[in-house]
């Protein structure tokens, strides 16, 4: 929408209608105002209208109250990030207005609740101000409630009018959300919505209409990253999980606790983080791949048990929904500072698999890949998600569930003999037999954390320790060589290669698009498999002058972020440098570009 200027309409008459291909709407209020609900409605509506959508939210880490925002970017084309600047700011309070006006682009519209916001004259020339007594009108529409309930739905009505949104579809969404409760709740919500929708936007405004998007084949589903991860695990056949509540991992355990029984499974809330990984390992040892997860401090607590999974070669999926660290850190902010603990955390040489999903859709498929790798290689697999991807809502093509859902029940047919740690396989992968299986030779193996012989019995033999260490390494090396070479976004050769992992894929790609449109030679590489790394990266790196690793973590003692450090250690390539930040917020596209240009300029000066 950035190309459309807001025009003032001289004297009455219907507002001008402008066609737009996308819009960024930021809703700012307090955490209990239901602004997430407005955002959720908009996102779901976009999903049902074959539009792309991405949301961004901040929530205070206090239990109730505190400023909170929800940003929605809706577009008819590809939406890669939540948007740097808002086109419309909906502000419920003075602090929402003052704190977020800077996120609005010059010429953007600020829609404010004039019952609570006193507009500042000095801002009126840069931003189009539109004050509506939202609180008062909501009370008028649905009756007096001191708590301003329903003003979010009233505001949704205003936005629906401003963006010419599909009213029957929104009514249906409101029905789905509030139906089934007390009928008066639904009626009030609909009354508030229509009051907002029919309220005059004043005599000064144009309204907007999204251009028809290119129709995509099939339906879209709309969900958060945590939801996609939880449902992906279920599709993958996981039927047991254990966890302990911690933000922002808790939603996954809540979903699995609620949903797994339908599939004959169980999720256990444990007494602590260590118990939960232990229980999941026990269930994994006993049959199907099980799941545990956590965030921040919880991951630190789980590392000893994770090492047991590596040593005993027991499959497990661990979800790490990264937040700001170290220690308790910033529980409701995003950071990518767990790459080191995911890849290397724990004592001893303990190779494991680490995958990082790039977006909400990828969360679903990454969960399935993680389960399958854990099963195939008998190893713990860490899924490195983060707070931003966990809480943001995206629409994506509905998966073909009949095809992707799998049954991973254990085979308990008797086997003639069984060595849990058979050294004969060249790739180090030995098939696993679970308890309940009869071994007709009468010799059984023990799953163990001690260094062991082929039957899992303890040994102090230097030779066996070398052979078993090599076995645990070789199986992941064989996994690594079989991984696909990641594709470069943009031309495969050029000046700058932006390298990223996890949730930064969208903004990095948008940065590439924007830079290339401005004539700069910039490409991007997204690394999803962080341990082991995929093959072919050195060839890709050789095609660029500058390899800039964009991460949401600190530059560290030696000047490189966690992935940049890993890549430098692996490839000894001095072209690899880092662009890092620790403000607890997702990358803005502009920020990436400015930092990349500055970094390259500094590097050139040093030459």
């Amino acid at each position, binding site marked *: 929408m950035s190309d459309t200027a807001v025009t003032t309409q001289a004297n009455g008459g219907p507002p001008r209608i402008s066609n737009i291909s996308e819009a960024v709407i930021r809703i700012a209020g307090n955490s209990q105002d239901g602004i997430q609900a407005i955002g959720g409605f908009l996102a779901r509506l976009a999903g049902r209208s074959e539009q792309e959508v991405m949301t961004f939210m901040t929530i205070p880490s206090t239990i109730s109250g505190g400023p909170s925002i929800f940003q929605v970017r809706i577009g008819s084309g590809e939406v890669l990030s939540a948007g740097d600047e808002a086109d419309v700011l909906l502000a419920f309070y003075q602090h929402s207005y003052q704190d977020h006006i800077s996120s609005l682009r010059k010429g953007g519209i600020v829609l404010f609740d004039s019952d609570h916001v006193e507009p500042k004259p000095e801002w009126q020339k840069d931003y189009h101000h539109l004050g509506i007594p939202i609180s008062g009108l909501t009370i008028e529409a649905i009756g007096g409630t001191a708590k301003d309930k329903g003003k979010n739905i009233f505001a949704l009505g205003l936005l629906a009018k401003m963006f010419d949104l599909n009213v029957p579809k929104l009514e249906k969404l409101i029905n789905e959300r509030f139906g089934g409760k007390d009928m008066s709740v639904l009626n009030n919500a609909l009354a508030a919505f229509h009051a907002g929708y029919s309220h005059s936007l004043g005599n000064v405004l144009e309204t907007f209409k999204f251009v028809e998007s290119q129709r995509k084949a099939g339906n879209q589903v709309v969900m958060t990253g945590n939801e996609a991860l939880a449902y992906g695990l279920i599709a993958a056949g996981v039927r047991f999980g254990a966890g302990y509540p911690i933000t922002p991992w808790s939603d996954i355990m809540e979903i699995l606790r609620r949903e797994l029984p339908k599939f004959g499974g169980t999720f256990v809330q444990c007494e602590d983080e260590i118990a939960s990984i232990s229980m999941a390992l026990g269930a994994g040892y*006993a049959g199907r791949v099980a799941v545990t997860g956590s965030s921040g401090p919880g991951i630190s607590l789980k590392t000893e048990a994770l090492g047991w999974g590596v040593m005993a070669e027991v499959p497990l999926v661990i979800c790490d929904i990264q937040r700001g660290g170290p220690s308790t850190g910033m529980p409701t902010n995003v950071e990518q500072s767990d790459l080191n603990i995911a890849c290397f955390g724990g004592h001893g040489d303990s190779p494991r698999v680490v995958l990082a999903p790039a977006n909400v859709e990828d969360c679903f498929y990454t969960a399935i890949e993680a389960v399958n790798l854990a099963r195939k290689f008998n190893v713990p697999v860490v899924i490195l998600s983060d707070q931003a991807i966990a809480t943001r809502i995206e629409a994506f093509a509905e998966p073909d*569930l009949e095809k992707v859902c799998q049954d991973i029940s254990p085979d308990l047919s008797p086997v003639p003999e069984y060595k849990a740690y058979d050294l004969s396989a060249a790739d180090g992968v030995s098939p696993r037999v679970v308890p309940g299986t009869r071994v007709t030779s009468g010799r059984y193996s023990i799953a163990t954390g001690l260094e062991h012989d082929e039957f899992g019995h303890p040994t102090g033999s230097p030779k066996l320790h070398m052979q078993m260490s090599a076995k645990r390494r070789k199986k992941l090396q064989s996994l690594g060589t079989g991984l696909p070479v990641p594709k470069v976004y943009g031309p495969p050769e050029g000046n700058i290669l932006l390298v990223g992992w996890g949730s930064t894929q969208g903004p990095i790609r948008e940065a590439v698009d924007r830079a290339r449109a401005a004539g700069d030679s910039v490409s991007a590489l997204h690394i999803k498999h962080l341990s082991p790394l995929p093959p072919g990266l050195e060839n890709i790196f050789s095609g660029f002058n500058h390899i800039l690793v964009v991460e949401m973590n600190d530059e560290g003692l030696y000047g490189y972020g966690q992935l940049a450090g890993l890549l430098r250690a692996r490839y000894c390539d001095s072209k690899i440098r880092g662009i890092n930040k620790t403000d607890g917020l997702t990358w803005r596209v502009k920020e990436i570009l400015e930092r990349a240009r500055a970094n390259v300029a500094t590097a050139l000066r040093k030459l």
Partner: protein
Amino acid sequence: MNETKLEIPQRGNISTVAPITSDDRKPLTKKELVADHPTWCPGCGDFSVLALYFKLIEKRKMHHEKITTVAGIGCSSRFPYFVQAHGAHYIHGRALPFASGISLSRPDLHVFVFGGDGDAFSIGGNHFNHTARKNIKMTYVVMDNWVYGLTKKQTSPTSPLGFKSKTDTWGAVDYPINPMKQAIAAGATFVARTTHSNPAHVLQMMEAAMDHDGFSFVECLSECVEFYEGAFDASNPRKGGVFNLVPATHDVTDEIAAYKLADEPFPGSFGVFYRVIKPTKNAKEAGIISSAGDKVKGLKDWQILQKTFERMK
């Protein structure tokens, strides 16, 4: 030979695996159950517990594949290596949650956990409380020797006041844990006490524990001849002590009476202190699964998930 594949119920239901089928296989002999020779010191009380575990398996005609032996870290936790069956040697103090994962996902298996007092009451203390309160079906035998043996004589959570160890050369100053009180207070539904020097009684307690539907806890005094010799002499008639059974008049469902028994000065009484039948977590989760399943009857897994996805459009 009847070697039917164990039925995995439709929809990957993990809580209703088919019951153990009786077949024509001969009961196991001790020879078939013995694995590594124990690494314990000659004269260690743990030998007695191991021998009686074998006897229990023989007596109850269990097959190798139906038993899963789990342990944490410590001298006694070496147990799984000495038993020819599926088993796991897990990390220090966490054997109970590991075993819970097995128990809650595989009701067809008998889960036995063995460990020592450090594993159970120090590093794993909180897991003991929570596994007990959740009443997860398994048998937990703690070989209590009142000392850290594997690390060579440090004070343990059950070391009595005044016990001279390498970490309390002047004698232990911290009040010891009373395992029986701990178990009763935590909500264990089967709490028994025995001692390695009375093999017939050990077997009797293990058998009663195995038959209990729920979390069954047995404290078995097991002398460490190397670092705490003579600790339990007062309970051993052969060493001039007395072995008192729990009085016949004791009501095992009376929690207060059980607590009073646990409060007796050493050597106290031996036998079942407390036993009540309460629904296990295993049964409760199976109930949740069964009522959730009723709502999706006849649907395949992908169709159940599809129903959820319909609501996310």
